[in-house]
């Protein structure tokens, strides 16, 4: 692994994909409006839930907004990197262009995961941060160094888990070829991340923390922001994230053994 080489390659990736995406300028504006509307819509839905009750799953409205903010940031990251790249794997495998990727003197997972970028996702990330700062003010959260490191750790762990989930499903393309709809299933499950885990019934809570760790992705970072998180939960998230990253890597290398190129 040569870090400098990879950084250099990544700069080129950024340059080329930004250049091609900026061709569609109105598209970026439409995407921004979509992101804003989608945030307004979910806050509207949340306000319906809180219309006649002060607490939902032990969360107040102002506190639940933090979850929305973190979800928006993570969704922005998904739209910037995961979505454009990992849906491309399907195309690579169907058309056999994965051959070209594998032949390049660079790590195939790196190439496949970071080749493209969708700039309109940046705006969504910024939108999420704006809401997050607003939440920090209305919830009167004190910012200190320990809090910042903890929140950074948990959010990066969430990003790792999210990436691994996407990458897992995309990797299965090697066997099943068409997995667009599997990605749709993941998307609809991820939608759960907009709400506090405690607002669901016990069985769903177990499902979303053991089988598909969506609960970890937004709830634990939000708890850190509110200062109500417990140390073992944070440790657990770090462990889950590491396990997911390592297994997704192993799974990719394992799956590649079964890759037999298109039309051969």
């Amino acid at each position, binding site marked *: 692994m040569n870090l400098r080489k990879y950084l250099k390659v990544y700069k080129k990736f950024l340059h080329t994909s930004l250049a091609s995406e900026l061709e569609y300028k109105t598209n970026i504006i439409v995407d921004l409006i979509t992101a804003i509307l989608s945030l307004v819509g979910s806050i509207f839905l949340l306000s319906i839930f809180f219309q006649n009750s002060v607490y939902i799953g032990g969360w107040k409205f102002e506190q639940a907004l933090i979850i929305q903010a973190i979800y928006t940031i993570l969704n922005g990251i998904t739209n910037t990197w995961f979505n454009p790249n990992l849906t491309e794997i399907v195309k690579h495998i169907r058309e056999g262009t994965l051959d070209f990727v594998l032949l390049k003197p660079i790590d195939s997972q790196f190439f496949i995961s970071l080749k493209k970028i969708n700039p309109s996702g940046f705006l969504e990330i910024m939108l999420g941060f704006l809401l997050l700062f607003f939440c920090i003010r209305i919830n009167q959260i004190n910012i200190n160094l320990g809090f910042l490191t903890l929140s950074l750790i948990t959010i990066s762990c969430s990003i790792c888990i999210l990436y691994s989930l996407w990458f897992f499903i995309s990797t299965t393309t090697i066997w099943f070829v068409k997995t667009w709809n599997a990605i749709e299933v993941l998307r*609809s499950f991820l939608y759960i991340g907009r709400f506090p885990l405690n607002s669901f019934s016990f069985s769903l809570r177990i499902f979303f923390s053991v089988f598909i760790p969506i609960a970890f992705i937004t709830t634990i970072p939000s708890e850190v922001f509110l200062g109500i998180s417990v140390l073992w939960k944070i440790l657990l998230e770090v462990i889950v994230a590491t396990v997911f990253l390592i297994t997704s890597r192993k799974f990719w290398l394992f799956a590649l053994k079964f890759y037999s190129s298109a039309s051969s």
Partner: protein
Amino acid sequence: MSNLINRKIFTLLKVQYSNMLEYRVEIALWAISGIIPFFMLNIWTNNNLNESINISDTMLSRYFLCAFFVRQFSVVWVVFSFEEDSLMGKVSPYLIQPLNPFFRYFAQHLAEQITRFPFALIIAFFFFIFNPESIWIPNFGILILSIVSTFLSFLIQFLIQSIVACLCFWTEKASSIERLLFIPTLFLSGLLAPVVSFPTYVKSWIYLTPFPYLIDFPANLLSGNETNISGGLSMQILWIFLLFPLFKKIWSEGTKKYTAMGS
């Protein structure tokens, strides 16, 4: 003449159905991805939020099950197919044929719904295992009416999306406009929360838009919740009458503009 039309319809449907049957797993997964209403139901009942809107747990679970069904049979994706076809230049041969290409997409959607039906039933079966108290049998008249209104909801969405799809003649990425339109559809149609629960400042104008007639109205009808049957059906038909001429207009304008990309 009518015989010819019949044959056209029949052949289109048959071809598309056998085409769709090839993608059974795909369609099964797609059916699963529609289970968001059940998660929402879980939030509603687990926090006793439905008490404030005077809907019992059982009625609410029936509502969300029906919302799931209505959504399953009114999903439209024509803009994505049309965008791909138009970028790849596949629209050109379709345009030569003496048949509006949208009939082809229409048949595709119907065939997909037939393929989807058994999977939706299986999901409903599991739903009833977990919620045995919500089992009910709607009477025959209501069943027919709700099938009609679901189909009308599908028609409205198909027309809206076809109009967006025609924008492909002017721009290359019409699907992003569809993604934009999907957001109000998602939040206002009643898929995530029944329209009755909306605050009054939204309820005052929402019934003038097409959104509540897409999912909320057919789902209320089928689940036996209170709804204005004749009002809802006539609004659905009204929207179809409004949208259809618009589609014809934009189609005829668009085909004049068509430049056969990718060929």
